[in-house]
């Protein structure tokens, strides 16, 4: 009688388990790189800070009970029209600390962690009870952790709110760039022929135009620059790397059997391109997108530094740096802290990009063993 040898049995048992998927496998490999994990943690923390900036630093209460109703004045920082009109009607003049008690002694409020504002100087009756006014060009102190600028605005508050600019510019502009780049790269790589020739020329032209001219000219065309404009401009100039990589991936993958199989089953071009090929080329395409976020943050802060960023008042790390440069002999804190924030953010995205590259590249995977 034939019996299965025990080693074969264990092999069979192992193969019966579902094999780890590509993304799970990649995540397992990504986790092995300590620096990449630290970088990912940093980016997640930064995104959380950016999303909750008004709760961390601000001079408007997060929650307040005023005349028997609950209000959320800190929402003003997200959108100017989200401040309840009652405070305007009751003549608060945006000064909650003085007005709340005066108009309704019964009121209470939960304040942000740091009572400082990126848009105004804390002085006069705006100050927190028993604390000093913000000095102009004040060095870091107990009350102004990262010092103040020449107008007496708190640098820490500006940096926390500036994280919003950096994070959103990075994400949104790269989403735009990815949409353009993946679409054009997919079309060029999948169809080839004259479509490829035309798209490749477009990519080459956009790559050759000095990006600074393109960006400066586009910024100069606008009357009042907002962060949204910057995102669109950076997105519209930063898609070439993604397009080239997508094109190469599509050229490679379209010759594989699963594409022929899909075509034989009657799938249309759009379906093959975006549900079959794109899904398989997503991992390598994510790498230039991650590096692109670092670039976008760099471009935004560089533009703000040169004075071509979003119109004031708009807290940006680059704007702080520019102010620091103008008084470099007195205000080191305007350079050291925002500079470190830009550096660490760019570094983190680059490290994630590199971790991603090594985790998802099958060639590197084999070498490791």
């Amino acid at each position: 009688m034939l019996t299965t040898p025990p080693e074969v049995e264990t092999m069979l048992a192992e193969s019966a388990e579902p094999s780890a998927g590509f993304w799970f496998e990649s995540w397992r490999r990504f986790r092995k790189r300590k620096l990449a994990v630290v970088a990912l943690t940093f980016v997640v923390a930064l995104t959380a800070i950016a999303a909750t900036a008004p709760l961390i630093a601000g001079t408007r209460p997060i929650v307040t009970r005023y005349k028997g109703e609950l209000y959320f004045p800190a929402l003003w920082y997200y959108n100017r029209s989200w401040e309840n009109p009652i405070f305007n009607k009751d003549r608060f003049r945006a000064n909650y600390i003085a007005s709340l008690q005066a108009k309704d002694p019964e009121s209470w409020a939960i304040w942000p962690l740091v009572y400082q504002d990126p848009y105004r100087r804390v002085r006069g009756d705006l100050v927190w009870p028993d604390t000093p006014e913000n000095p102009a060009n004040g060095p870091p102190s107990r009350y102004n952790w990262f010092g103040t600028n020449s107008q007496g605005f708190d640098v820490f508050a500006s940096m926390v709110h500036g994280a919003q600019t950096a994070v959103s510019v990075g994400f949104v502009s790269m989403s735009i760039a990815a949409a353009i780049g993946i679409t054009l790269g997919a079309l060029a790589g999948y169809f080839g022929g004259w479509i490829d020739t035309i798209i490749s020329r477009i990519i080459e032209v956009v790559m050759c135009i000095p990006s600074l001219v393109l960006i400066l000219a586009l910024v100069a065309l606008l009357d009042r620059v907002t962060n949204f404009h910057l995102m669109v401009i950076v997105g519209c100039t930063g898609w070439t790397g993604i397009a080239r990589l997508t094109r190469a991936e599509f050229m490679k993958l379209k010759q594989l059997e699963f594409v022929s199989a899909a075509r034989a089953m009657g799938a249309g071009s759009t379906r093959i391109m975006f549900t079959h090929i794109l899904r398989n080329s997503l991992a390598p395409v994510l790498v230039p997108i991650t590096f692109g976020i670092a670039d976008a943050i760099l471009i935004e802060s560089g533009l703000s530094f040169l004075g071509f960023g979003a119109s004031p008042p708009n807290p940006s790390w680059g704007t702080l740096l520019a102010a620091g440069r103008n008084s470099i002999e007195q205000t080191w804190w305007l350079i050291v802290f925002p500079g470190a924030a830009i550096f660490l953010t760019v570094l983190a995205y680059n490290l994630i990009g590199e971790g991603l590259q090594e985790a998802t590249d099958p060639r590197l995977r084999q070498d490791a063993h």
Partner: protein
Amino acid sequence: MTSYIIRRLGIGVITLLLITFLVYGLVRNIPGTPFTSDLAQMNPSKMMSPEAAEKLNRLYGLDKPWYQAYFHWMSNVLQGDFGVSYSRNNKPVGTLILERMPATLLLSSTSLVLAYLLSVPIGLWSSARADSPSERTASTLLYMLYSLPAFVAALYLQLLFYVKLDWLPLYGMTSDDYATFTTGGKVWDLLLHATLPVICFTYGSLAFYSRFIRANMQEVLRQDYIRTARAKGVAPLTIIWKHAFRNTLIPFVTLVGLSLPGLFSGAVILEQIFSWPGMGRLYFESIGQRDYNVIMGLTLMFSVLTLAGQLLADILYAVVDPRVTYN
């Protein structure tokens, strides 16, 4: 090969036409003209009368729509006339660029040489000592340098060496009393002023090149012929230098071609921070002054260099690697 080069040149010319056309359209559509200067904005009495502006516009061909003016500019360029700078006393653009070129070349060529000289030993060392603790630390540091934005580095260095230590000047290319110095003093003065910009220009490419060399070396060191060399007892240093490094030179030479445009373009932000009178600064100033001819002259030069660099890289690739042919 010849037909390949001719085809590439043909495509290059079309690309150039497209780029210049686009940039011309962009800069001509920026609000304001070279004659609505900053001076006039500050002091309305200095504002030009509409008639005078009209006359100037006609004189310089700015009264035509931009696409017509573009062909006017292009035909002049083809005859070797790049126009004059409106904001700099009608100085010819060619002369202006040649005046600014040495300052940029001083920085870029020094930093290029430095980056190559330093990155080869660093790259070789790190591939020889791969995965040792000291190599990992060095590689991480280099990676951090690579991610450090140049303008942040520039400001940090200025804080350290000017504000804190007071060893080096803050900006400019020469001191105010430069003319009174002896020759040795002039060289020293220039050296002091150039130190920080050169460091800022160099460290990024240094980090990039040494990582590039290391990555290529790792690829080569896995090849069979390296194992053969090891097996027959060749000294480790000889393997690194003779067997492995020589074979990584192929991708390395393409880098030389691609770094060509950077040699002349300068870095706008860095030259701005250090008030360095080079091409990057000229470019930035010209955009602010709507000095169309200067912007176009510089754009043309950068684009030609970029395309030439790419072509050069591809040709060099075929020259050093006999396996590569373009047919």
